[in-house]
């Protein structure tokens, strides 16, 4: 499986094709969200909600052979699209890869301009939560 940075480079070049057209970019992000695997209804519970997002975001994780897999859903398509990008970059990676990841693609693709500063805070909350899961798993592995 490709490393975190090579996936980020892939995403950056995909967004370069879209150029400055905000409309196509937003539709594209939403389409990425549409492709996320279905999230079980019973997991849409309070415990799985990420705090700090304007939209509702549910995130669950599993540890499989030392690698962390993320599943997520949101009540808004744009947020679902954004989290699908994070999942594409981080899911299936080792705990230390996730903890040490520098997610430069977000700035490179101009996400702040696309979603506005409030949503950007939400995106940071998602990343923080994903890293916290990795830290918790690592502590468990090392225990």
């Amino acid at each position, binding site marked *: 499986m490709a490393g975190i940075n090579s996936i980020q480079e892939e995403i950056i070049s995909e967004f370069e094709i879209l150029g*400055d*057209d*905000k*409309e196509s*970019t*937003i*539709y594209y992000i*939403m389409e990425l969200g549409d492709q996320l695997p279905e999230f079980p209804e019973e997991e849409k519970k309070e415990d799985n909600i990420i705090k700090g997002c*304007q*939209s509702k975001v549910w995130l669950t994780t599993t540890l499989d052979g030392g690698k962390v897999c993320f599943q997520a859903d949101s*009540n*808004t*398509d*744009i947020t679902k699209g954004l989290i699908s990008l994070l999942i594409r970059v981080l899911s299936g990676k080792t705990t230390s890869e996730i903890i040490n990841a520098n997610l430069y693609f977000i700035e490179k693709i101009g996400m702040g301009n696309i*979603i506005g500063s409030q949503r950007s805070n939400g995106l940071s909350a998602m990343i923080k939560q994903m890293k916290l899961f990795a830290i918790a798993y690592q502590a468990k592995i090392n225990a």
Partner: protein
Amino acid sequence: MIDLEPLNNLYSGIIAENKIRALFPILHQEVNGKPLVYFDNAATTQKPIQVIEALKKYYEVDNSNIHRGAHTLASRATDYFEQTRNLVKEFINSPSSEEVIFTKGTTDSINLVASTFGRKFVKEGDEIIISTLEHHSNIVPWQMLCEEKGAILKIIPIHDNGELDLEAYKNLLSDKTKLVAVVHASNALGTINPVKEMIEQAHEFGAKFLLDGAQSTAHLDVNVQDLNCDFLAFSAHKVYGPTGVGILYGKRELLESMPPYQGGGEMIKEVTFAKTTYNDIPYKFEAGTPNIGDVIAFGEAIRFINQLGKPAIREHENQLLEHASERCANIKGFIPIGTAREKVSVLSFGINNIHPFDVGLMLDASGIAVRTGHHCTQPLMERFKIEGTVRASFAVYNTTEEVDRLVESLTKISKRKN
């Protein structure tokens, strides 16, 4: 002052759209590569050039603190400030300009009444009636007052079309009712309430009536003597004026019997450390230096509306609303929220399977500004069991071509999930 006389020639059955638009500099820009369509007028209207120029002129030429000044600038600023008060008096047909108080906005006006009238006249066990349609600013001040006083808040329910249940209202009224505080036109749905009749009914029980005119004053003729409301609250910025200026109209005998709102300069007659006597109305309620420049500029907004005339504005906006409602009804998955028979130019809706925020974001990407969410009316959203709506609200400078662009974008958006 800018000569608006030529505007008189613009009115010929309907408002000549392009000429009106020329007066609004902000409308002539691209957003996300597309010409801006501004449909967030219920949140705040854009300002005509004469309002912007008046604000600029005030700071360039007339800036001075008002009242009591012994110099030319101060008396000029005072004159212009008081001229706006007089314009507001005529705008709402108040019996006198002393009954017109400048505040920060509708919210401030309502809080003023809650803190003064409420504190003095509302007692334990008294009842205050509001409606399901209210904005949070006409809910929370009364909740706070009721909590403090041990009074009871009663809520007028609504029908599924967003109209008030007037039978239920009649049944809520009693000798215990101290105040009814109801919105003239709903910000979230556009419903126009039959307030004249409601005011009369409240008066039969000796209750006072506060009318929240935030969403009606830009569209409807709001005549306080004809309506016979005891208080009227509204904001300048929703009536083509600047932000930071609100109006509270109150009947003289009420205002005179109410204690002051805030203490400070301007609101006093004489201050000694032993006792302070308060100024007469309206100054009793205007402690501190007011928002002079914005008040003066608001005068130009009123002149602008007067030149066009409310009937012409209303006719134009009604045409836009009708056109939008008809065309949107054909969009797959379009769900109108609030279908009252009488509405101001607010089109509130949902799109099946798509969150209002996503709709707003996609519209913004195509240069169309709308509002999405609960519109500060969470109890109303709860009534409809929805998280929020998408709200397009039209003003005098909007055009049918802009409505068509909205329809076109919504059709494309809806196709994603319908």
